[in-house]
């Protein structure tokens, strides 16, 4: 069992020291909250795989970067590509381990820890897989605190760390090594290869040290995700859920409504970014009876209420299916679903000028000021 150390040695609420098989359901639920892109198609296979590894190899230690020797070499991991592709072409099991080992071979030094590039979606689970396979700790930190579309949309990149060298290892058994000097070039080079590798790949990137991550990564995001997941597993009422989420991560409810329309290609399309623009229209079922319009990419990027912008990226925008008591994933939405639209502030770095330029509304072609800046 993992250990919750509220406000003690971890230094922040709900710090967790290890992840065991018992934590996998909470990990999955938390991963869904931090990205509505997670579907259910591969849930049972992925969670059985991770739980099996943790049962066989023992719990994975979860360490803050400050708790590691500063020269400990660390590498981030994520799934690049779509969860749907991964569901239809499941891992063989060695992809993440081999991606890490390829960079070790290249640099001639082993890694002493791994960390999530993005603590959300299935990308929250796979670093735990790799940590269990490699026998190293997992860092309680990540580069996004949620998910963004491109691999340089990270706090590490904002802090001056390079994503390269990076390795994408596909379920086909093939891999790609990318070495670039300009971070955004890495994503462009990577995407075309990911499609050829089967639609998804295990990505190892941002090789660095624990010392560098103390200032460059977002701390405590794995513990936070697990705490959110545990709360979701309790299946509280929507009002209780929001109240308790508010205490963990500042979440609040924008409104509740039924889906009345799904629109596609509803904004100009940038084909270099995965997922295409689409929109979701909800009719509020109580309160002010507003029309809520949600602009989507691979995540929800903006919410308008009766035409007024009320929340936007980098805010984390989530949908809670109040009829079923669970987070709704974007690939399962249907007209008629009754949803709460939730907003959670992102980590502070994303509201800086540099962060907003990278992942704010402007990056989605919406030229409006962020509501938090008005």
């Amino acid at each position, binding site marked *: 069992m993992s250990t919750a150390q509220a406000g003690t040695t971890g230094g922040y609420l709900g710090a967790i020291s290890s992840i065991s098989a018992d934590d996998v359901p909470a990990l999955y639920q938390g991963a869904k909250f931090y990205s509505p892109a997670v579907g259910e198609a591969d849930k049972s296979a992925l969670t059985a795989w991770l739980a099996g590894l943790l049962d066989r190899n023992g719990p994975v230690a979860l360490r803050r970067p400050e708790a590691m020797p500063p020269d400990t070499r660390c590498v981030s991991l994520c799934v690049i590509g779509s*969860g749907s592709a991964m569901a239809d072409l499941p891992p063989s099991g060695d992809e993440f381990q081999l991606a890490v080992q390829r960079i070790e071979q290249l640099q001639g030094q082993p890694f002493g820890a791994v960390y999530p590039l993005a603590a959300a979606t299935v990308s929250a689970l796979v670093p735990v897989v790799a940590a269990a396979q490699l026998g190293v700790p997992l860092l309680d930190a990540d580069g996004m605190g949620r998910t963004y579309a491109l691999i340089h949309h990270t706090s590490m990149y904002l802090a001056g760390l390079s994503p390269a060298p990076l390795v994408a290892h596909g379920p086909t058994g093939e891999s790609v090594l990318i070495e670039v000097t300009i971070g955004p070039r890495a994503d462009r080079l990577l995407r075309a290869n990911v499609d050829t590798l089967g639609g998804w790949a295990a990505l190892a990137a941002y090789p660095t040290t624990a010392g560098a991550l103390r200032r460059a990564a977002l701390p405590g995001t794995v513990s936070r995700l697990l705490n959110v997941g545990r709360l979701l597993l309790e299946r509280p009422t929507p009002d209780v859920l929001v109240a308790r989420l508010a205490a963990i991560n500042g979440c609040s409810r924008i409104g509740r409504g039924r889906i009345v329309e*799904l629109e596609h290609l509803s904004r100009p399309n940038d084909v270099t970014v995965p*997922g295409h623009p689409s929109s979701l229209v909800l009719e509020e079922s109580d309160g002010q009876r507003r029309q809520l319009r949600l602009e989507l990419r691979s995540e929800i990027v903006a919410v308008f209420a009766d035409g007024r912008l009320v929340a936007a990226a980098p805010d984390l925008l989530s949908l809670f299916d109040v009829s*079923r*008591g669970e987070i709704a994933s974007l690939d399962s939405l249907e007209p008629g679903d009754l949803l709460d639209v939730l907003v959670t502030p992102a980590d502070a770095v994303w509201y800086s000028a540099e962060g907003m330029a990278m992942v704010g509304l402007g990056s989605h072609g919406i030229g409006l000021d962020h509501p938090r800046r008005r």
Partner: protein
Amino acid sequence: MCPDGARAVLVVDDGTVLPVDVPPTHDVPAVVAAVVGTAADRVGPDALRAVTVDVSAMLLDAVVRAETSLPEVAVVRIVPRPAGDPELARSPARLVERLISHRWTVAGGHDLLGNELRPLDEACLVAVCAELVATDVRHLAVVAAGSQGRPEHERAVADAVQAAVPGARISAASDFGGQGLIAREATVVLDCTLGQLTDALLTTWEAALDQHAPGVPLRVARGDGGFSTPSRVRALPSVTLGAADAAELRGAAHVARHEDCRVLLRRPDGQVAGDVRRGLPVVRSAQLVELGTALVVPTAVLAPEPGGADGGEVLRVTDVPLVVVDGPPFERVCVGAATSQPTGWVDEIAYIESAEHLAGARREAEERAAAMVTANGAAPGTSYLIESSIVAVPYSPSGTVRIRVRVAGASEVPAAAVPEPAGSAA
């Protein structure tokens, strides 16, 4: 039809539910005779229009109890390379995995958009066929990565096995579509093992109908709340899984006279809730609780409802009428099955480049779903769209969408053209 025996009700065209006085029994001819008698006495001679049977509880019971009469299944996965981790090599559902006696991986497969990832390993396929011949397993489930869009590799394996083992029953995942290799594999394993039992059950009902009500068609309840023909269900038994849940939701809504409502159902593990919209249960390709794995055939969405017991506070939120059911479920299941319609479902990935392309993809999916409805027993020209949703697939190449379409139809010409009183039973 349940493991403790079959029961029936009669539903008249005006929606009236008439009890059929027959105790739970495995004597199917006796049940059919009671239905025919009730219809004649209460509605009129020759009034019985159709009989809909729900066999899902029988099939599920056989799987859960691991009946030795269920044949063992061999599985061929077609993926670029085999799973190296034991958990990834098997089904996460224990009940499904124990049905499987042999597993092979043949290199091959496509991505979601239909691009070949590996040529099919023909030499490996020959070796697999030789090994299969040497076993006594004659039921084979085949699942290939990407077969929803490109079934060629699955078909090549099925053809080779059929040639090597001419009597083999082969289920291929491309017959079902849907998302997720593990869910598709579980669906075809169940489909393969349940074929004999399904055939036996339907043969019994057909014989009883021939005896007591010749000419009255038999329909089979589906997991999506609709029905299909016996021949279609014999070919794809998995489509019946979960039919009792869907029928119970529909039946409860019918009895309460609600087109749109939320129904609270009692289950041994606690209370669950499901929604009914426009008279049909809300369904998804989702996990069937009893099996512990997702399937790609649509089944009723049932969410745990910790509140609401005995009509108390309900914790989940809804803005439609709440129907709290009482008493044993069989009458509601029978009513739901009897009032069901032929239905069809498409769930697929497509790639679109423009609004026109999107409209074309939607239209094509709707046309295919309408064709399925006709194959499932709808009168030509009666199909209509229940739901159609297209969502972008997150983190996929721009333009990748998931299309889901649900279509229903009418099994008869419109009621106005049928002057005599009519009824149907389940």
